[in-house]
């Protein structure tokens, strides 16, 4: 099978998965206690008003009709209207998504650099100093809750040392043209170097918090899988051909170590998003995570449902991308 047909198959296979996902979200939100109409109007509203509102929201239709209305809505990008702000949930998510994307990208870079290089080098020097430190590090950071770690970093670097801002995403004085919503990219595009520095200062603590915590698991996975691969015959054979460490380690051992890692990376990414929710809340980062927490506080059901759908679709897209990268690294999955 060529790479192209593999990608097409993978996308087609994702469609029923998405449908099931949407169904699960829809029905769970209808099973759990709590009436969205009462949440909007309060418990003491007259019965006519409640019925009126129920009709407005389409909640008086049969469940199956509601379900297909909702599916149609998701396909056309209509995730309903926030009961809190009366704005389209889709629009609100669109506004906040770049913040989350920026945070996850930078966190992921930290995860990748620490996990990949430290993991690989530890595996090469198994049981030596660097490796022992790596093992302690990954255990420690795995055990630390992400919000607590964020708070401690805030305390040290923002409160005591005053090197970095406590929270938020950008200073009020910084002003450049927003094109993509990714501030780092926008600052680069408008060549506003002071703006870039400002944005990076805000980005540092949240992305380090999230990146370090997630890197613990990743480091461990890379290290253990690389140790396993380094014991393989093909590594010895590569050394027997006189290849240098860089090629033996990264070109052979780590490359193969990633085959099993890829399959769990999709789940790791979900953990990254879950961590993002807590990190965003800790650092008042105006992304989708803090949006979800806020909406839950106000029982804004359409917004909650929309956000969950959005997260779910995001993870599906990411896992498709991971599968494609996996197919590039390991051609065996294509055949």
């Amino acid at each position: 099978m060529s790479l192209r047909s593999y990608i097409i198959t993978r996308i087609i296979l994702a469609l029923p998965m998405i449908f099931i996902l949407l169904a699960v979200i829809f029905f769970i939100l209808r099973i759990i206690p709590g009436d969205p109409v009462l949440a909007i109007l309060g418990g003491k509203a007259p019965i006519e008003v409640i019925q009126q509102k129920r009709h407005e929201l389409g909640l008086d239709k049969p469940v199956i009709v509601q379900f297909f209305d909702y599916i149609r809505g998701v396909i056309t990008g209509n995730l309903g209207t926030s009961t809190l702000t009366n704005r389209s949930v889709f629009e609100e998510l669109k506004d906040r998504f770049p913040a989350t994307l920026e945070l996850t990208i930078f966190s992921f870079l930290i995860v990748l650099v620490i996990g990949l290089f430290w993991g690989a080098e530890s595996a090469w020097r198994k049981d030596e100093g660097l490796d022992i430190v790596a093992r302690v590090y990954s255990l420690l950071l795995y055990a630390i809750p992400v919000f607590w770690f964020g708070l401690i970093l805030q305390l040290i670097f923002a409160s005591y040392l005053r090197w970095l801002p406590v929270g938020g995403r950008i200073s009020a004085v910084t002003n450049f043209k927003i094109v993509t919503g990714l501030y780092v990219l926008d600052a680069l595009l408008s060549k506003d170097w002071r703006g870039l520095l400002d944005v990076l200062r805000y980005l540092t603590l949240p992305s380090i918090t999230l990146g370090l915590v997630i890197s613990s698991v990743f480091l461990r996975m890379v290290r253990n899988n690389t140790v396993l691969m380094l014991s393989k015959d093909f590594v010895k054979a590569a050394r027997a051909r006189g290849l240098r460490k860089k090629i033996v380690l990264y070109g052979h051992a780590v490359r193969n170590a990633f085959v099993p890692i890829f399959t769990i990376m999709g789940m790791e990414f979900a953990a990254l998003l879950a961590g993002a929710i807590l990190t965003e809340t800790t650092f008042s980062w105006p992304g989708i995570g803090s949006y979800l927490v806020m909406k839950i506080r106000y029982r804004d059901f359409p917004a909650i449902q929309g956000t969950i759908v959005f997260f779910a679709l995001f993870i599906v897209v990411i896992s498709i991308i991971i599968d494609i990268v996996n197919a590039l690294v390991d051609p065996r999955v294509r055949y």
Partner: protein
Amino acid sequence: MSYAKDEIVLKAQGLKIHYHTQKGYVRAVDGIDLFVRKGETIGVVGESGCGKSTFGQGILKLLPAKTKYEGELLVGTTNVIPLDEKEMKKVRGKIVGMIFQDPMTSLNPIVKVEKLFHETLKEHEPNISMEISRERTARILEKVGIEPERMREYPFQFSGGMRQRVMIALALVLNPDIVIADEPTTSLDVIVQAQILELLDELRRSYNTSVILITHDLGVVAQMADRIAVMYAGQIVEQNIKNKIYYQPKHPYTKLLLKSIPNTNPKDLQLNFIPGSPPSLLDVPPGCRFASRCPFKMTVCEKEPPVFEIDEGQVKC
């Protein structure tokens, strides 16, 4: 024995390779004297755990980091014992090539064949271009009987025999003086075994490469080797030209080993074997290491046996 010095491509003298373990040093190779002449095949035979593979991998110093090497090991004219990893890299692949036992695991399944060749060539000839390395890959693949177009495929798409051909090509692409073949046919079926051995022999002739053939299969060395070294418990107990080993074995171990080859004579269906097992290499008893299993044991065997020079070989008994 005397040979012109330039004829000898490898010479081990009092070579010892001891593995580090928590219980102490395992004396896997414990004093080997052996030389290899240009273009000849030398078979190293012995049972499992006798140290033959350790010897093979020890030549390239591929063993775990804490392994202790002693004695002298000349590759060409360089003693490789004191060399560090960086200097060893110039020997590996370039002067000494290696073929491993299991072709299913000794080629990275997800790295394209042409890339395996390219990275190997590039390591030793840093300025080589992809085109030239493809050309050379095509040439050597053709020699081992693989269509050059298949270099664009991955090793996992090859059969076991084909992979071993790729492995041989990979070991020979830099035209090394010596090829160490560590049980090259053990994991292959009999027909493929014969093909691979024939190929190896043919290439040895055409490149005038020396081959160190490590195997437990006496049939394999009978087919290929010019000279044979028989190893037991980390030492060479007897070495000689092939026919002398087969028809006039001197050491009791060699004799018993040859007797234990199953034959197809219907009158003699008894399967011969050597009772007992080799001593632990962690704590070697003094004297002859084979004494405890030797049917000809004498009191003198409790002392370290001397080495006798016999016409073209040696026997330690």
